[in-house]
């Protein structure tokens, strides 16, 4: 061996032994470290591993459908995919945002805004960045799972309404829940949930919403689904059947057309709402995905107020329709007595002020009785009645018959209208009631205000001998409120005879719209938005009116009562709103007669009905495009001689 080697066998045994102890100590400490993780904190890490491995994906429950009274589908669902962005990893999100924006065709700025707006939400909660994914989006997400593991798709059910705003104020619409709704729901609703925002969608939200299910899946470290653990199926929402008759609704929609106004048809025997239309009507399909801020602002600022549900929320002067309330009050209170007549030279002077009759300048009514005053709608007669009765009696009867308070229909945000009283004026305007104001109120002007629904309800109640049934939209409603107003048989007979005359006697204001073979009765009304004199002073000629017509059939104990109002019209109420009412009443009887015939050949009926159901369902399946609204035309024939 070389020079360096020396047979030196003195080994540092003590230090070698020390090395052994160091080894034992070192490994014992490491073992203690494992003990801490695997035995002491094992549960905590077990949960963390589960959270890594398991991702819970909600299965959205479909909302219940809405059917009409014959079982035809009015509001339906269709499946759609939402794109979710997983935000647990802030760095990854920021890095991938431009690629995501490009891949999904979104604006990067919008996406950033949305992330900023949702900063307050917990990180593990994904946000919806695109509510309706196109096939291209789906392909993008699937093919980029590995490099952009932040996107997830969620199957949702979107609402499909009949196109063109059909019945949209009744159905309402759904949208993402608001902060207030989340707070009010006691934890039932979470941000991003869909809930009814208006109309029946809101009223019956609790029935319509189902219970979302949950799918628990195993994902790998790049978010790829590797397997399924469990699946809790969604419980679909309950289907609701409405009292609405699709055929009558169709007539109401076409009747109103592009006029601004409202139509409501009730069955006064039950309180069922047969048709419910308010125009202009926004198409809720446009909000079913997501309504843009600009669109929403436009709808809110539109002077035609398309978001106003005119059936229950428009509080407008009833005009001459109010004369039915006046006549009822007069006959019941016998002030003035029934044989009271007034002379109408075309105007009258009360409390030193001239009040015109609606025929002023063209003709005069001459000497009129109560019946003639109703039929020909003489203002001067009712000025006199009002003056003799006083505001106290007028308001007492108006309220007794159901004006000035909500009807209690199953719709959110119904307005009560207004019946002025002496107390009301003192409370609001801090002055005594001017007796002159009573004269205007007597013909449904001044401060008296009603909703179209109230008009149908009140007229239906009077014609039903004082039996008032709470209007409602839900068929087989568990409880329907009712009230009975004591009206003498004579009062009912006289008032209904008057309304029959309006349509069926020559010179009646609704004579142009009488129906062959049907006891069609009614009352027109034309509420000036300003007085005749003010309008002429402003050079507006006749001014703009709210044209009313309330009609029903048959004369006593009617089966259908329809109130219609056409706003901002230059026409008389009988001309503007009358035909709409008449068409609905006619359609009601046409259908009824058809059904009666059908009952004779019973096997026909079921087939026909099924066929119709399919037809409506197919219409509902058509993706909402405005021009396709025209596809939905009423099937009933439209021949009706004036």
């Amino acid at each position, binding site marked *: *061996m*070389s020079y*360096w*080697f*020396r*047979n*030196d*066998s*003195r*080994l*540092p*045994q003590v*230090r*070698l*032994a020390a*090395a*052994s102890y160091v*080894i*034992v100590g*070192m*490994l014992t400490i*490491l*073992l203690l*470290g*494992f*003990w801490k*993780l*695997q*035995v002491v*904190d*094992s549960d*905590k*890490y*077990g949960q*963390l*591993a*589960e959270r*890594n*491995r398991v991702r819970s994906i909600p299965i959205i429950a479909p909302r219940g459908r809405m059917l009409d009274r014959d079982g035809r589908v009015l509001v339906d669902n269709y499946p759609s995919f939402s794109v979710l962005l997983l935000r647990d*990893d802030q*760095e*990854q999100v920021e890095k991938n945002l431009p690629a995501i924006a490009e891949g999904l065709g979104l604006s990067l700025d919008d996406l950033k805004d949305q992330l900023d707006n949702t900063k307050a939400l917990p990180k593990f909660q994904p946000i919806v960045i695109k509510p309706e994914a196109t096939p291209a989006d789906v392909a993008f997400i699937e093919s980029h799972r590995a490099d952009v593991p932040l996107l997830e798709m969620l199957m949702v059910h979107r609402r499909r309404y009949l196109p063109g705003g059909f019945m949209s104020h009744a159905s309402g619409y759904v949208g993402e829940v608001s902060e207030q709704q989340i707070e009010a729901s006691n934890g039932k609703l979470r941000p991003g949930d869909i809930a009814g925002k208006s109309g029946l969608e809101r009223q019956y939200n609790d029935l319509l919403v189902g219970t979302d299910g949950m799918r628990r899946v*195993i*994902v*790998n*470290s*790049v978010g790829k689904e*590797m397997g399924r653990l469990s699946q809790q199926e969604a419980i679909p929402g309950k289907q609701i059947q409405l009292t609405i008759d699709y055929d009558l609704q169709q007539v109401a929609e076409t009747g109103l057309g592009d006029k601004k106004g409202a139509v409501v048809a009730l069955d006064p025997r039950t309180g069922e709402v047969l048709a419910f239309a308010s125009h202009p009507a926004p198409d809720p399909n446009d909000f079913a995905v997501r309504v843009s801020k600009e669109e929403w602002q436009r709808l809110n600022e539109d002077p035609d107020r398309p978001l106003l549900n005119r059936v229950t929320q428009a509080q407008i002067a009833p005009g001459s329709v109010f004369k039915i309330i006046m006549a009822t009050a007069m006959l019941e209170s016998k002030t003035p007595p029934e044989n009271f007549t007034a002379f109408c030279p075309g105007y009258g002077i009360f409390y030193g002020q001239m009040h015109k009759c609606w025929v002023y300048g063209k003709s005069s009514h001459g000497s009129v009785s109560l019946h003639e005053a109703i039929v020909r709608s003489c203002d001067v007669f009712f000025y006199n009645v009002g003056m003799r009765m006083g505001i106290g009696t007028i308001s007492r009867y108006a309220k007794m018959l159901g004006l000035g308070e909500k009807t209690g229909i199953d719709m959110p945000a119904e307005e009560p209208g207004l019946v002025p009283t002496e107390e009301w004026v003192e409370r609001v305007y801090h002055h005594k009631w001017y007796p002159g104001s009573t004269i205007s109120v007597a013909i449904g002007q001044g401060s008296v205000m009603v909703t179209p629904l109230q008009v149908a309800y009140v007229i239906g109640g009077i014609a039903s001998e004082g039996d008032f049934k709470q209007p409602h939209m839900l068929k087989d409603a568990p409880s329907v409120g009712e009230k009975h107003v004591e009206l003498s048989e004579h009062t009912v007979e006289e008032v209904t005879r008057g309304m029959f005359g309006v349509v069926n006697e020559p010179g009646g204001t609704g004579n142009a719209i009488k129906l062959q073979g049907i006891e069609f009765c009614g009352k027109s009304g034309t509420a000036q938005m300003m007085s005749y004199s003010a309008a002429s002073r402003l050079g507006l000629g006749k001014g703009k009116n709210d044209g009313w017509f309330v009609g029903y059939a048959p004369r006593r104990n009617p089966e259908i009562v329809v109130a219609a109002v056409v706003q901002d019209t230059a026409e008389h109420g009988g001309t503007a709103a009358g035909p709409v009412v008449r068409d609905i009443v006619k359609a009601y009887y046409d259908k009824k007669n058809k059904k009666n015939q059908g009952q004779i050949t019973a096997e026909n009926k079921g087939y026909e009905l099924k066929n119709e159901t399919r037809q409506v369902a197919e219409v509902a399946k058509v993706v909402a495009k405005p021009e396709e609204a025209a596809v939905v035309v009423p099937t009933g024939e439209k021949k009706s001689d004036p």
Partner: protein
Amino acid sequence: MKEAPGARDYDWWLLAILAAICTIGVVEIYSATHGSALAGMHMKQVRWILVGVVLMFVLSRLDYHAIMDQAPWLYIAGLMALIAVLAVGHTRFGAKRWIPVLGEFLQVSELVKLIIIIVLARFFAEVRTDELSLQDLIKAGLLVGLPLVLILKQPDLGTALVLMPMLIVGAFLAGLQWKHAAVIVVLGILMLPVGWHFMKPYQKERVTSFLHPEEDAKGSGYQVLQSKIAVGSGGFWGKGFGNGSQNQLGYIPVRYSDFIMSAWAEEQGFKGVLVALGLYMALLLRLVQNAQRAKDRAGMFLVMGVTAALGFHVLVNVAMVIGAMPVTGIPLPLMSYGGSATLFVFLAIGLVMNVRLRRFVN
């Protein structure tokens, strides 16, 4: 008088321990990769082990004195290889550590570790005093310092760090004086900021994320967190072979290599860890025993150099897996997948066998 060592003279206990560790490693590599694009990796590891065993037996037949004879040349060759790898080496995973040998990429620094063990053993064996003089200590330091700087250049902090325990253990056994030890510790602490200054950004990040794991939820903090989740969720009994979700779903970083202990701990639980760490303890203690029975100081230093290197590997790797030390990229001997690392361990054991075979011969 010189008898060739027979089969009986091999340390069969040591080989049995190694075989057990290798088996655990191959099993866990299989479990970690069989369902992925890396499937089949365990067979590659088996090949490396077989090659390693052959090299081990070959190396054990050479007299270690003859090998230590060549220490200066080995040292020079090692330095030149390090320089060569810096000049022409292959860059993989962001570091220049590899040179191609027979169609495989080998890490030069693994070979250099072996050389430094031999060189240090030779150096300390030549120290004749019972106490290590300051002069000799500095010489030994320089001997290690030169290749250390070159390895840091690659950069490969992990391997560079392994040289330190070799030096420390060698110096300790050569009679390191306590006062010198104290001075080194103080100096070391003072040098920390300087060392920080020379660290690469990713190395700094590993240290900061070790000190403040919550500030780095993805990066290396994420790796350590996922590793801890894997270990902790394994519990006492483990989730069973092939059933570790952290392992199978890829949450554990480099689960077949640096973090294989994490995968093993998840699937086999604390009981499995007990077995694995027990085997490592047996291995290290058996190595110390071989050192104690070495015929001369030269053999003792050689065996203890190997012990220091392997012990350090086990300590740093396992401590990293349970989040007790920063991520350094030091593999777990014979369990982690890796050609160069496996060959290094078997060659090192070959040196140990060499010493053992010659304990009775003269």
